[in-house]
């Protein structure tokens, strides 16, 4: 990923609290190597495949993220509750969401290894929101994110939610990940 675009639009897929990395990408698919492009795509196919059906696509639930034979989902945003990405350190988790077409996750807060992996790998933008958006946004709502002003516009309900500023991770995300950032700050030779 390179620089974050100023505006991102697309559909929301809503999840609850403590969505752990085993739910995001079950361990049986970790045999694919994300460093190989053809295998990277496979992670998109199995993304979120261990989320219990009742918790999939809230508030109604039982809305699949994508069909079994699709590699990319129709959604651009994940909106979730607390502690998104807890559990294992597998970078395959943000990889799977990226491979499935997710550009932005908005959660109340993240488990730290998922957060680091998302930022340092430059896979997606992990925004935090003090309000509990997973109770306000419905799966399928059309969202428009104004990245610079940290404002999320729900085009379906016409509500606007302020998101927390990206802060210290913005320069890393804007550089495209830790390697590009380390070159910018002189920690790595160009």
């Amino acid at each position, binding site marked *: 990923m390179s620089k974050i675009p100023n505006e991102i639009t697309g559909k929301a897929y809503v999840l609850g609290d*403590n969505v*752990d990395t*085993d*739910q995001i990408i*079950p*361990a*049986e698919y*970790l*045999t*694919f*190597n*994300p*460093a*190989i492009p053809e295998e990277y795509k496979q992670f998109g196919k199995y993304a979120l495949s*261990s*989320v*219990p059906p009742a918790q999939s696509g809230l508030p109604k639930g039982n809305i699949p993220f994508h069909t079994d034979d699709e590699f990319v989902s129709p959604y651009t945003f994940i909106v979730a509750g*607390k*502690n998104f990405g*807890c*559990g*294992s*350190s*597998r*970078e*395959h988790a943000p990889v799977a969401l990226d491979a499935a077409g997710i550009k932005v996750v908005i959660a109340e*807060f*993240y*488990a*730290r*290894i998922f957060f*680091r*992996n998302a930022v*340092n*790998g430059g896979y997606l933008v992990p925004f935090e929101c003090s309000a509990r958006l997973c109770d306000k946004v419905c799966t399928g709502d059309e969202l428009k994110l104004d990245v610079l002003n940290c404002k999320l516009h729900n085009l379906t309900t016409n509500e606007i939610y302020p998101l927390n500023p990206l802060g*210290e991770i913005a320069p890393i995300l804007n550089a495209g*990940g*830790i*390697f590009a950032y*380390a070159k910018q700050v002189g*920690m*790595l030779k160009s």
Partner: protein
Amino acid sequence: MPAMTLTEKILAKHAKTDFVEPGQNIWIDVDILMTHDVCGPGTIGVFKKHFGKAAKVWDPKKIVIIPDHYIFTADKMANRNIDVLREFSKEQNLPYYYDVGTESYKGVCHIALPEEGHTRPGEVLLGTDSHTCTAGAFGEFATGIGNTDAGFVMGTGNLWLKVPPTMRFVFEGTLPPYLMAKDLILAVIGDIGCDGATYKAMEFDGPGVFALNMEERMTLCNMVIEAGGKNGVIAPDKVTLDFIDSKNKHKVPYTPVYTDPDAKFIYEKVYDISKLQPVLAKPHSPDNKAFVSEVKGTKLDRAYIGSCTGGKMTDFRAAAKIMHGHSVKIDTFVVPATTEVARGLKTEKMHGKTLEQIFLDAGAKMGEASCAACLGGPSDTFGRLNQAIRCISTTNRNFPGRMGHKEAEVFLASPLTVAASAITGMITDPREYLA
């Protein structure tokens, strides 16, 4: 100089500065980078992509590669991943690659690291596995990272980190014989929640901690990630230093570091461990705490004893103490964490029988040293929950799908509780089997 915690002191030293404070972003020098078969191939891919196909790692002696996740499987992709590790280790002349199918094969990385002398007080250990925090038991800063971070470390020996504030958990009193470190850490996680230590260090202190052996201290630090902790740490004492010196065959010098008496903690909680009861975590989260007495009688389909959390000699001694002279009522899987533990099960005796014989006589199934079903894995993994059954396990996580089937239910408990439950086929308080 303002006072610092053990974690802050280690990070300051590795950032080549005298003082750091929580919240500060720093670049640190890394002492050991560990990876395994699930994240190693991706890490190697990141390293080669950014440093070039002919690039050399920053220091071959500081990279430890321990395949352990998907070892005894017919899965071709899993086996391919081991080949990637083998070729890379050969190409880079890595002295510490513990290859599958050889005498040097170890099993679970977090237990293998100290056995092979790769953990030392005062150091920074980063590993591509969330349970890397286990090594905090040796008084070092140890935490899990992803492939991109690991690829960066592989090429540079450095990484940026945010200094975490420290929470202190003080264990007062004497641990009763029916409790283990697993009960203590499940109680802590249940109290603070599975996000209660997010971005924070968890330091364990008090006489109850220093009375524990190294393996039990490792169990405490192992599960800090289940509370979201960045690292868990225990100050080194004589027990630590004796252990380290007995394993430090590479004769690497090290300097123990201690928390200053007036260091600041963001949170402090004192437990009287003499009054605690056996604890477990109900499905589907490690913070879903209950006392065993509250759920006893719950019918089970399977028991599992293994993993970095519950597959060490101390864990098997505890299980054997309960299982000796009894038969299991449900499928019971016993998986030593490492080949060294497996040898221990074949040699150490209790009531005139080896521990392995006690398990076999009770009707348990013995597996080979590896992570096995703790994280599900390929469908032919030993002990994997392939159906929606109910299991009690000495492992670390019980999120949906963790041990295989996403509708399976997993209860996390101590080896004593799991062994007692295996005998009755229902959740059982180990006090019923300890005279």
